[in-house]
């Protein structure tokens, strides 16, 4: 008799509120979700397999396409892993620019999350505002790398190119105007009774469950676990910046919202500090085995020509070994596990995608709630299917 009472429906893979191609099989008792089973893999592109046939530098564009809302975070994790494997220390200017760009990326990623999450719950206008500001960040990507989304700006050993002229002014004007914009979003949402009704007490997860399920990033911090890899294992010089870790208490959709808004403010603070301390100097290590020689040199020096040729035809070799490097991406712990057999091609690359792990907690949060809450909860986990499926 119980079977007759429940109904099984399919949500996705083509459903706007699943943020891509996520498919959920929902077993419903009336409006209440009894069981929620996620089915993933619709966007599986075999990135880890492809990486096993590419030279180390060629893997960078692949990483862009995982969390395509935060391409530079993925780049950073990968290049840091290769640098750790090779024992390379990048110059200070490159480090500061990396921090500045990844924090702008964090803001850009959180803006897409905010816009789409709000539109899922019915607050249309936030989406338009959030995308207006994100456009400025995409313009900055374009200025530094030539591409608006798949920027691949970081390289093993440093950066693809130095910042263009007057770029600092662009960033400065953004960090000046953005806090007011953020206050506008908060005006629309933070105290909005409908927003509160739809988010407070919804999709609650306890801190011990969140840790058990491997959740990380704002999702974990919203439960009150103050773990941020930028603080616990600083990389790229994060230990020199003053910023605070977001922290929630209830672990519900509303606290996840507050945490991410707080993080955007902190990111602005970090970008400001990066602008202040931006040192002059080289943007990549001087090692010709890793960094291509300047173009004019290639035409004059035989050695430079050889290095140039070798780098583009063979790449570089890495020592035999294995490393795991993780960073605090906008979604959580983004880890790269790299195994080298000493050749110019990675033997194995594994990406620990935060969205993949965070999504696993969805049934835990959604079961026992209403169907409409499932939409709010998916939005609050902030998944990118490109990263879930890789």
């Amino acid at each position, binding site marked *: 008799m119980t079977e007759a009472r429940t109904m099984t429906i399919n949500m996705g893979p083509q459903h706007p509120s699943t943020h891509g191609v996520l498919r959920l099989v929902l077993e419903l008792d009336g409006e209440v979700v009894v069981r929620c089973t996620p089915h993933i893999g619709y966007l599986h592109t075999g990135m880890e397999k492809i990486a096993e046939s590419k030279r180390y530098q060629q893997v960078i564009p692949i990483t862009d396409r995982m969390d395509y809302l935060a391409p530079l975070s993925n780049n950073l994790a990968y290049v840091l892993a290769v640098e750790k494997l090779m024992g390379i220390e990048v110059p200070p200017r490159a480090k500061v620019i990396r921090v500045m760009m990844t924090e702008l990326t964090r803001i850009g990623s959180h803006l897409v999350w905010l816009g789409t999450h709000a539109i899922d719950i019915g607050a249309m206008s936030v989406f338009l505002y959030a995308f207006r500001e994100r456009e400025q960040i995409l313009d900055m990507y374009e200025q530094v790398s030539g591409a608006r989304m798949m920027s691949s700006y970081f390289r093993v050993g440093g950066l693809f190119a130095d910042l263009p002229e007057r770029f600092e002014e662009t960033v400065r004007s953004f960090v000046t105007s953005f806090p007011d914009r953020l206050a506008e979003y908060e005006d629309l949402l933070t105290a909005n009774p409908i927003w509160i009704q739809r988010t407070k007490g919804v999709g609650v997860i306890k801190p011990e469950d969140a*840790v058990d399920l491997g959740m990380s990033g704002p999702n974990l911090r919203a439960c009150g676990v103050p773990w941020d890899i930028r603080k616990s294992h600083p990389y790229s010089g994060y230990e020199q910046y003053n910023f605070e870790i977001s922290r929630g208490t209830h672990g519900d959709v509303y606290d996840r919202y507050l945490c991410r808004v707080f993080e955007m403010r902190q990111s602005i603070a970090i970008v400001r500090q990066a602008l202040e301390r931006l040192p002059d100097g080289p943007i990549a290590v001087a090692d010709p085995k890793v960094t291509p020689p300047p173009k004019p040199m290639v035409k004059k020096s035989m050695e430079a020509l050889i290095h140039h040729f070798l780098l583009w035809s063979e790449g570089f070799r890495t020592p035999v070994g294995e490393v795991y490097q993780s960073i605090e991406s906008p979604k959580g712990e983004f880890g790269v596990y790299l195994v080298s057999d000493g050749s110019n091609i990675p033997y194995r690359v594994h990406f620990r995608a935060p969205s993949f792990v965070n999504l696993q907690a969805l049934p835990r949060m959604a079961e026992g709630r209403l169907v409409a809450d499932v939409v709010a909860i998916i939005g609050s986990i902030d998944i990118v299917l490109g990263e879930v499926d890789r």
Partner: protein
Amino acid sequence: MDDLKQANAEENLTVWKLRERFPDAILSTKSFRSEITIVVKPSEISRVCRHLKEEPELRYDFLSDLTAVDRLREHPRFEVVYHLYSLQFKRRVRLKVLVEEGEAVPSVTQVWRTADWHEREVYDMFGVGVEGHPDLRRILMPEDWEGHPLRKDYPVQASPKWWEEGGER
């Protein structure tokens, strides 16, 4: 260099604690770029993990990552790799289990529930069985897919003809 020293000291603690508790389960240890790798006997992995998680001086309460590596032509063929993290002590450690093709590793889902999807991915991509997993089925590839894409003898690109001929092994 400070990092290195610290890591070696930690190696002593975690490895030493494990050796004390499981004298026969630890097959070898290694340190590279101040990261510790401990190779564990397959049959003991679940017990070792539980101990690492619950021992008050270690508290590896967070399973960051679980994956596998195919060492084709080596024996045992597969390495299943566990990246553990301690939120309290901010430490990382890597565990490894070596299994031959056709052998299964014991599941650690009883220790960390997050292992569920990771182990399904390892099964899907490498065909390494997981014993005691509550719901072991493919996760990324379609259910009726043949083969395991991340195995080294699985081609990155192959023509339909390659498949018709049963694949060149």
